[in-house]
């Protein structure tokens, strides 16, 4: 009986494993891994002529064309630097929010959390459009400044430039970034604070020696959650970036859509993917995330 029961339990565990892991694996396989592989294959295609799924002689033409176009590579570099800046700024701004929710909001934390998430109830596009209403020449900020007689002509520098893209993206990411930090802060055992206080640590020291180090896994998770998609971001620059606010993702998007040049778009994508992966790997080496999570 005992053995049979154990055997059954083993089977059950295996079944549970497949039941839990298989659906997302299939999903990711079909809708993530396969498209990435296809894109990798397309990046070695000479041009778009012929059927989508035909055999072609692999060529490095697309990579050569990217390598010989300095402006694409410079834009990739700029996009990475901007994404780094946006990642850092977002985490710095999201941290106090998460801190408040986790350690100060008390019984109202749930309510404040809902408030934080309210922006997600509306579409991303609407929120970005709202920034246009705020920053436009006839927008809220300009109208207010003109009304207050601070300026006489509307400021045109607010919208349609890279600063507007950065501002908007930081705003969009803050609630996202607050969540992993919040989760990390909630995991801290309150007894540690009591112990620290008993041993004479003042609040600032408690923060720098306990709260901050223990919440770092959440901080890094938040940073990468912002940094990685921002490198390839293209919607926000289209809406508020004007003629000079484009990021690397816009060039990729153009080759896939307007230019009907998927091979070149794929090569640009693979280069971005590889660069981002290398950067993340380097970062994890430097920070040693595993140690942080232990």
């Amino acid at each position, binding site marked *: 009986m005992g053995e049979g029961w154990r055997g059954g339990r083993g089977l059950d565990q295996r079944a549970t494993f497949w039941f839990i892991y298989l659906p997302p694996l299939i999903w990711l396989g079909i809708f993530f891994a396969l498209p990435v592989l296809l894109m990798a294959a397309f990046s070695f295609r000479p041009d778009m002529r012929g059927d*989508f799924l035909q055999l072609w002689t692999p060529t490095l033409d697309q990579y050569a*064309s990217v390598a010989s176009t300095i402006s694409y590579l410079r834009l990739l570099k700029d996009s990475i630097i901007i994404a780094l800046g946006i990642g850092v700024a977002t985490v710095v701004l999201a941290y106090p929010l998460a801190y408040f929710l986790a350690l100060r909001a008390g019984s109202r934390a749930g309510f404040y959390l809902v408030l934080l998430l309210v922006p997600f109830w509306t579409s991303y596009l609407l929120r970005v459009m709202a920034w246009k209403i705020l920053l436009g*020449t*006839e927008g809220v900020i300009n109208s207010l400044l003109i009304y207050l007689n601070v300026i006489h002509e509307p400021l045109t520098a607010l919208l349609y430039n890279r600063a507007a893209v950065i501002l908007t993206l930081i705003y969009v990411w803050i609630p996202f970034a607050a969540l992993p930090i919040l989760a990390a802060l909630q995991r801290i055992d309150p007894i540690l604070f009591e112990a620290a206080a008993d041993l004479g640590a003042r609040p600032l020291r408690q923060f720098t020696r306990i709260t901050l180090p223990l919440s770092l896994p959440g901080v890094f998770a938040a940073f990468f959650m912002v940094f990685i998609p921002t490198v390839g971001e293209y919607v926000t620059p*289209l809406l508020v970036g004007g*003629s000079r606010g484009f990021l690397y993702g816009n060039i990729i998007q153009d080759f896939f859509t*307007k230019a009907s*040049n998927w091979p070149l778009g794929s090569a640009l994508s693979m280069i971005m993917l590889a660069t981002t992966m290398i950067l993340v790997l380097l970062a994890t080496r430097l920070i040693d995330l595993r140690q942080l999570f232990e």
Partner: protein
Amino acid sequence: MKSKRSMLFKTQGWMVAFVLLLSACGGGAPATEVPPAEQTGSLTVLEWAGYDAEDFWVDFKNTYPKVTVNFEIGASDADIFNKMKAGDQADIFHPYSGWLQFYVDEGLVEEIDTSKLANWDKVPDSYKKLGQINGKQYFIPWDIGFSSILYRTDKIPEGVDSWAVLTDPKYKGHISMWDDGPGAVTVSAYIHGYDETNITADQLAAIKDEWITQRNVNLFYWSGEPELQEGIRSGDIWAAYAWQGSYAVLLGEGLPVAYANPKEGRNSWVGFYGIRKGTPNMNLALKFLNEKLAEATGTNVVNEFYYGDVNQDVMKSVTDPMLIDIFGLKDPDILEKTNFTPNLTAEQRDAWTAMWAEVKAAP
């Protein structure tokens, strides 16, 4: 309207009789053509946003009320081409000047048997020819329009007489160019007198530099017309590359706008319908195209979008002086003064779109 409708039914009647006679002569199975009003089935049209409105296929709707027409929306010529190439199952699609050759090269389009189109005679030969590739009628022309400069007359009271206004530092921060590489090449070709069908590598390099510099005056590139219209409405944009549909919309709102007649000539484009190779709905598709060429549908295009229609009966009945002015209907040389967009080759498309990507990527 009523008389037009009954005329249409009469034409349909004749067509049915003719088809019956033909099939009888052919000696095939006795044809049992269902009367139009009883015809059923469904058609899918890959269209541009706005053209899915019933006004723009009203003749078909009225003649074949029981046929379901589904619309898929394409955002641009490239989008429509990509969709068709990826195996979109739309029966009919709507490409514009410049993009026709690709569909033929890739085997995506069926040759059209124009003998099945009763309204075909109302289309002038010059337009018919634009839909022919390699001597075959793969496309039927339908809507015609101009690209020119749309500007605010209150902001630029001196007026606009050249495409070069799009690069004029005097209007820094108030210009909007269409987000399109081939469109930019066209504008530069007009300004500098280049042969648009034969742009050399040196010319393309000069064009790239010109548009990189142009970003100093350009506020944003527009992709969709509503975005452009909003810019002009708000007063941010004073002059822009635009299609006359946007002029129509803004003028209709009472904005002080004008549509330039540049000394280099306006650009003109034609919209076409093609039938997907291998469609199981060939008969219905031909009927749809025939009704697209009918008068009520064409009249709506003229009145609502200020675009021209290939049906000359429609154009002859235009009485609105503003429309006569827009189309230059009184000007016998208007077609000579208009630059029609030539068909691109795949090499040109790749080179010109890459040039544009470099403009956008430039620091």
